[in-house]
């Protein structure tokens, strides 16, 4: 599936830049990217900006990635948006069950275009 509008959620501006750069190199150079520095800001942004894919970190101040995923699942307007979790501690398969059906997969940082492309093809 081709994602045309992608929301990147991470408290680190460096990490948001890397996610965007990797996605562009993975074939999403034509996509429109939106950014938020925590889960609460992401939810605010989604009220007026529907997206095709959300890429989120887990550990963030104010609202973390797990809470964001749960809030997305509980809202019919956002429950179908696929979510890709990226984190420095996201590697274990057991984590997948924690998130729920809207999470595509969890990818461990550091990211690469190949890692992201593989995750989105799963």
């Amino acid at each position, binding site marked *: 599936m081709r994602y045309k509008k992608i929301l990147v959620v991470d408290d680190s501006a460096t990490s948001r830049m890397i996610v965007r750069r990797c996605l562009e190199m993975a074939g999403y150079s034509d996509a429109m990217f939106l950014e938020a520095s925590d889960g609460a800001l992401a939810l605010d942004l989604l009220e007026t900006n529907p997206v095709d894919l959300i890429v989120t970190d887990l550990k963030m101040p104010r609202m973390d990635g797990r809470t964001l995923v749960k809030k997305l699942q509980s809202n019919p307007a956002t429950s179908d948006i696929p979510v890709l979790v990226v984190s*420095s501690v996201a590697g274990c398969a057991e984590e997948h069950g924690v998130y729920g059906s809207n999470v595509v997969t969890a990818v461990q*940082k550091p990211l690469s275009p190949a890692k992201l492309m593989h995750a989105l093809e799963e």
Partner: protein
Amino acid sequence: MDISQALTEAVGSTFANLAFMDAEPDFAHPGEPSPGQIIAIEFLHPLDGYLMLHLTAETKQLIIENIHGVDWESLSGSEVDDCLMELTNIMAGNFLVLIGAGEHRYSLSLPQVLYDASDLIDEDELVDHYFSVNGQITRVSIKYLPGSKNSGS
């Protein structure tokens, strides 16, 4: 995996994949890295402890420029700090996953930039590991105790 092996793997893969730099253990390190920057992060689950990354000014500059792909003088102080904190976060997270095999949850604090490690912890509690990062001596100090500081959220 033992601590030294896990740290070597986490430091090597983080520098290679994030900053495109070579990091090898330096068992015969010729001395301490000249003061530059310290970035600290706390292990909360499944371990209790710290990881502190001590960088020379030269290594710090190279990391920033490699990750951002621009001259570091064009970046703000907060952009520089954010970049170093993200590198430390990834390094600590990879170490935690390698050392805590079988755990379902991992938790780290948010990283912080320090000018003196003793601001955060008694340095005698830390074990120092030395690496050659693109030829520059780099120290990674860790405190590692089994058992979590919280419930592992």
